[in-house]
Structure formats: structure tokens, C-alpha cells
């Protein structure tokens, strides 16, 4: 069975230079798309990936990364839309680089679909009433 997952890899400083993702392809036969990559001011690496491949290989690949010292989070779970605050204005839709925020044609409400979210946080900066929230862990 094959799977497709969107995850964020967090590399500590000492692992940033290591070709870990290369092993995912070579040793575990996984395909990936880079959604976002960034080095934080603390020189920690953040890499958002969409990974596709066989389910067992995926689990083994994730195991390998975890053992190497990489922290893994599910993508999109960190952002949420607070419906009590949201005014359905649409401003966030204009900055969202993915289909995660879209306007429903009928109700004209703004719908958030976390499956598409790449946690770029643009909506958080733009929302005029702070209705887009990020969960800190």
C-alpha cells in the first residue's frame, strides 16, 4: 500500500549539512516534493516535504530520520482558523500560496482545509482580526 504524507523535518544544527533526504530516496525508495525549506536564526533547518511511497518503506524512512536526530511533525496541524473571530473577509485567501484557504461559492465563507496547508504563516500575518492561529508546541 502506498502513502502520501506532508511533514515538517526539523534538523538540529549538526545535521543540517548531512544528506539525510538523499537516503530516503536511495534506501527507502520514497519520492518527495519540497514545499518549503528554511534555516532559522539558530541555524536549525526546517524542511517541509510531501513524501510518497510504500507504507512500510515510509515507516522505515521515518524511523531512520528519527534515529538520526531529526524531529518530525505533521504539516498543517499547527494552523487553525478560529471561527468565533473570523469575519469571512477573504484577505487571507489572497496571500495563501496553496488551496488551503478558499471561498465557498455559495455561502461566501472562507474555508480552511488543513490538508493543503504548508504552514507558511502568511495568513497569520495578514488576518486583520487575528483569526488564523498557530499552535506552539
Amino acid at each position: 500500500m502506498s502513502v502520501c504524507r506532508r511533514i515538517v523535518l526539523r534538523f538540529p544544527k549538526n545535521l543540517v549539512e548531512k544528506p539525510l533526504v538523499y537516503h530516503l530516496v536511495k534506501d527507502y525508495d520514497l519520492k518527495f516534493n519540497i514545499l518549503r525549506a528554511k534555516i532559522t536564526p539558530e541555524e536549525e533547518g526546517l524542511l517541509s516535504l510531501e513524501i510518497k511511497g510504500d507504507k512500510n518503506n515510509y515507516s522505515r524512512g521515518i524511523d531512520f530520520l528519527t534515529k538520526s536526530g531529526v524531529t518530525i511533525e505533521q504539516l498543517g496541524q499547527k494552523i487553525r482558523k478560529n471561527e468565533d473571530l473570523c469575519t469571512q473577509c477573504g484577505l487571507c485567501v489572497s496571500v495563501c500560496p496553496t488551496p488551503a484557504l478558499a471561498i465557498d461559492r455559495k455561502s461566501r465563507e472562507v474555508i480552511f482545509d488543513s490538508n493543503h496547508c504548508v504552514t507558511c504563516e502568511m495568513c497569520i500575518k495578514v488576518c486583520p482580526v487575528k483569526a488564523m492561529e498557530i499552535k506552539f508546541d
Partner: protein
Amino acid sequence: MAKTYEEINEKIRKGHAVVVTAEEIIGIVEEKGLKKAAHEVDVVTTGTFGPMCSSGAFLNFGHSTPRIKLGGGHAYLNNVPVYTGLAAVDVYLGATAIPDDDPRNKVYPGEFSYGGGHVIEELVAGKDLVLSATAYGTDCYPRKKIEILVNIQDINEAILFSPRNAYQNYNCAVNLTDKIIYTYMGVLQANLGNANFCSAAQLSPLLNDPLYKTIGIGTKIFLGGGIGYVAWNGTQHNPTVKRKENGVPQAGAGTLSVVGDLKQMKAKYLRGSSFLGYGATMTVGIGIPIPILNEEICQYTAVKNQDLWCQVVDYGKNYPNNLPSSLGEVNYAQLFSGEIEVQGKKIPTAPISSYSIAREIAGTLKEWIKKGDFELTQPVQCIPGPESGITFKSMKERLVEPRFE
């Protein structure tokens, strides 16, 4: 067959009035024809919910013991400066005011996370606010300093009084430059990356009464979740812009100044808002009933998104430099479709005002009227229409001559 305000009010009092929203009237006119629709429908309700920077409130705190004269001094509510150039304990709190120590755009783009609009929202929500002030002291007002908690329940008046709201139509904003910009129309990506627009279109009050035949001074309205009135035309009222055959202006035109008692409004419809890189403001909910006095007025209210046009304006260079220009005209059906074409390029569109809450406001006003809780008022005076010749002018910048002894 014409109706009068009194006839419509009589029906409202008896609970017989036929009230529909500005969306519903479209289908009714299509189905039954104009004549029958105008005969059957008594009132069409409109709504809008968008950022309106020229909003604010007059507050009177009552006198302290001993007395203090805020007039000529400095006063703040939750650190947001209020205007004190009035009598001892009257102030004006404007929606775009921000704390003196807000970093503004020093860290670009600034967040403007708290301002006058937020203070108004919290005041209406019944939260305590910190009033801090310094004064110069006089024989009759000796006190020089105060720092207390105030609450909307305890103060004398809290009157929302906004010099310009409910813009009749607006621009569609794009950016032709090669840099991202942060505007009151939202974030505009470089090189025509997106287009933002701001109107409730077919639900919008003044687009349903394009020539101001029923909305005038004294018109009773839904304001911020409560009841308010049209006080005057708004500032920058510009009735002489180009219009289509249906009378509807093709760019920002009429505006309204509105007034109402904040104490009966709801925080849900007066929302403090922060525009990235631009400033703080308030998102305001307004709904205006339109009496269907005759077929002409009914025809106006049946206007559809595809009949409402606006100008595409470059906010990268032309708008900031106050250069008159339009990159073309688009209608609201196109804008709501999510994509328009500008200079041969297809670009995604997004609104910055809430159509769904505009719809909710028109629906709420409809229920109030149907239940007999809200009667219509005939304006005591019309606001200026195209025949007035009034045109919005740019600033005349006459230089000050240096004077030597």
C-alpha cells in the same frame, strides 16, 4: 402605483409588510416582472461589512472629583490617544489611532496590532478600559492627572459618529511594480500577482439606491448591530463620477456619515482590525432599508453583480502618486468568480470585505422590519446627487511664502 413611507410603515406596524433582501429582490423581479415586484414588495434590505477607517466615537466620562479638564491636555484609552480638543470630559476616539509607542512601519511591514477600532470593540463588548490623562489644571478644574478604569455602563454618552462610511463602490487594487506592497486593500503581490476588491456589490446599500432617492439625512439604519441614522453625506462624497445607464457609479462615489448610540451596538459588528504594513482600523457593519416607493426604485434594488462595475487601479505607482488612471473596468460577477484579466494576464481575485456577514446583516434587518421592530424614516433632506455638481477635489498645495523681516 406608488407607495408612501406612511403606507409602508402602517404595513410594518400590522406585521404585513413584504420585506426581502437585495439578493432576493433580483430573483423576484426576474420571475414576476418589475411592475408586480414593485407592487408586492415593500422594503428591500441591504448590508455591508468592511473596513471603514473614518469611524470613531464621542465619549463623555462624567466629572472626576476634584474636576479635571481633559480639553487641551492629553488622554489615552488603553494607551491609544484620543482627541481632547473639546470640553472638559468629552473626547473623540478615532478608529485608526495607535499607541504613541507602536513601532508603526519601523519594522516593515508593521503589524498595527491594537488601535482605536480595537478600543471601540472592547468598549462595546463591556470590557473595562484604562483612561489615563494629564491636564494643565485651572482654578475650576484643578486636577492634573488621572488613571482609572472606565466601562461603557458607567460613562454618560458613547456615540458612534463616523464622518465617512459605506462607500458606494470602490477600486479593485493591483500592483504593477516588481515589489510586494502592503496596503489598505491588503497585500498586493508584484507584477499583477493578485487583485483585491472591497464591496458588498449587489447587497451594498448605496449601490441599491445609486441616485440617493431614499437614503438621506435622517434615514434610520442598522449600525454596528444596533440602530443608527444617516447624519449627513460622508466626507469625500463624490456624486458626479461616471455612471452606467442604470445610474450606478463606475468608481467610488457617494459616502455616508452615520451616527448612533454605541451602548446598544454589538462588538460583533464593530471589529478592531489590523492591516499589515498599513495601520489599524475598524470593520463596521451597516444595513440600510430601501422603501419600494415605485417601480424605478424597485429597478435600482434589483441590480446584479454583473451590472456593477469598478476600476482596476495600480496601487504600486499610480495610486500613491495620486495619478489618475484606470487599467480597465471589471464587474463584480467577474471579481467574485475568483479570477479577472488585466493587461492580458489572468490574475486571482479576493475580497477584503465580508459578503457573508453583509448577507447576514441584510437578513437581520429584514427580520427586524418584518417583526415590526423597525420602521422606516423619510429623509429630512436628500444628500447631494449628480445634479449638485459636487466633485471630490485633490489637495490644492499652495506653498507658504517664506517671510523675512
